[in-house]
């Protein structure tokens, strides 16, 4: 049974082309991936991300538990701070990537929608000490308001001053008179916020947001543009660029693997060994030199020899050319290396470039 998010009626009203994604009916696009992409890069767009899994962890051992389950160091989080992180299997393969929020009396894990059940079970199996796990996905709606005009737009209907809110910090506020958690987070490379709000009041917030954003040409944005926006930033998509057969070091996520944190974490031993030996393959950014557009599963070649595989590929609306993420043999991962991708029987030239592809995002650092 495919579920609807609280915003389903609004997607239909806005002409959304609905598809099944992570068990939900979600808009693939409204009036086109390219214009929606540009909307977020230039002013502001709204994403219904209610399909993401939201897991509340409480109890006196909650922080220690989350720290054991994730690779980043959750113990460094201040109250109301968030961090990007990864959960690994003992062999170093990735269970999921996620955002961890620390609040006064609990933590909130925001995971990929398609992995919600798997992650919940994985966490449940490892519960120890005084820890309670509650999956609150269905009762909480989630919106991402993204773009350089996200702050001036939200400011009009938000009870708190957003300007002091730092990147990856959260606050409680009323938005359109509804109690929300608001954080300066997102997956587009632009400045922006995510809102967590009671599902039953979700439509009120949506409608007020659309009114407030009118002067900035605010629009709802579909999954299609969500994918091109994240790909231009080299943000990984679980199921494409990372999965149980990939470890965070080869995925370029070493910056959230903290070997020295107290208590260790699941997968640490194997990852430490991989770090010492250096990963055999690396996730690289490839920019096409001609007009061809790379797609997932295409093979990557160097001097006629197969050296890797594309995991994500698209036409970049910002760059106007084909871009890809690909795992390649470490020897060929250096910026400036010329490679070839086999596209429809032809070997098309591609260049390894430094991330992100799009370098003008308004994202706060």
């Amino acid at each position, binding site marked *: 049974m495919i579920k609807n998010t609280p915003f389903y009626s609004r997607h239909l009203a806005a002409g959304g082309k609905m598809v099944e994604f992570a068990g939900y009916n979600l808009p693939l*696009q409204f009036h*086109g*991936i*390219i214009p929606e992409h540009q909307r977020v890069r230039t002013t502001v767009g709204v994403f219904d991300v209610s399909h993401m899994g939201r897991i509340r962890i409480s109890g006196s051992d909650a922080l220690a538990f989350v720290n054991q389950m994730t690779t980043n160091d959750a113990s460094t989080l201040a109250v109301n701070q968030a961090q990007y992180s990864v959960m690994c299997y003992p062999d170093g393969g990735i269970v999921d990537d996620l955002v961890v929020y620390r609040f006064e009396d609990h933590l909130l894990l925001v995971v990929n929608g398609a992995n919600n059940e798997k992650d919940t079970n994985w966490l449940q199996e490892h519960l120890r000490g005084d820890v309670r796990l509650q999956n609150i996905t269905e009762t909480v709606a989630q919106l991402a308001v993204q773009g350089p005009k996200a702050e001036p737009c939200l400011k009009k209907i938000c009870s708190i001053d957003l300007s002091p809110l730092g990147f990856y910090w959260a606050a409680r506020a009323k938005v359109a008179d509804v109690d929300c958690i608001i954080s300066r987070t997102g997956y587009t490379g632009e400045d922006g916020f995510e809102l967590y709000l009671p599902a039953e009041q979700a439509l009120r917030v949506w409608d007020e947001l659309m009114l407030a954003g009118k002067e900035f040409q605010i629009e709802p944005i579909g999954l299609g543009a969500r*994918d091109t926006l994240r790909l231009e930033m080299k943000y990984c998509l679980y199921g494409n660029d990372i999965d149980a057969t990939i470890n965070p070091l080869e995925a370029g996520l070493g910056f959230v693997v903290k070997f020295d944190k107290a208590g260790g974490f699941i997968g640490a031993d194997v990852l430490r060994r991989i770090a010492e030996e250096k990963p055999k393959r690396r996730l690289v950014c490839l920019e096409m030199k001609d*007009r061809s*557009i790379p*797609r997932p599963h295409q093979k990557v070649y160097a001097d006629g020899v197969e050296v890797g595989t594309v995991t994500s590929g*698209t*036409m970049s609306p910002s760059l106007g050319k084909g871009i890809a993420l690909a795992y390649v043999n470490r020897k060929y991962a250096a910026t400036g290396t010329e490679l070839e991708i086999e596209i429809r029987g032809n070997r098309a030239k591609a260049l390894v470039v430094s991330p992100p592809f799009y370098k003008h995002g308004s994202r706060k650092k």
Partner: protein
Amino acid sequence: MTEIPADLKYTKTHEWARIQGDIATVGITDFAQKELSDIVYVEITALGKTVKQNEPLGFIEAVKATSDIYAPLSGEVIEANQQINKAEGEAPAMVNRDPYGQGWLCRIRLSNPAEISGLLDSSSYAELVKRSEHH
């Protein structure tokens, strides 16, 4: 609503053919362009060649996927829409804007006009689209 002109013939793979004498003008349907969305490149690889019915005529690149275009009918591919074929920039988006008009793709000189009777008429194609939309 999906537009399906009554005077055209259709394939199950969402191409249309406008037949005038022994020449068929070929494009993709309104349903197909909506499914693909954001078309950024079109190449008629079979231009100048002889193709059999259902063989690839070329391909269409949209932002999110690449799709083959299949020959509705056998014959020689005598012309491609110069505004669109291998064009860069905004031109390929004409297939999204006007799939049955300025967004036509190529012309085929038919070698076996008997195949025409095997194509779908607009009402049969409308049924097919309806089933695809409510899958």
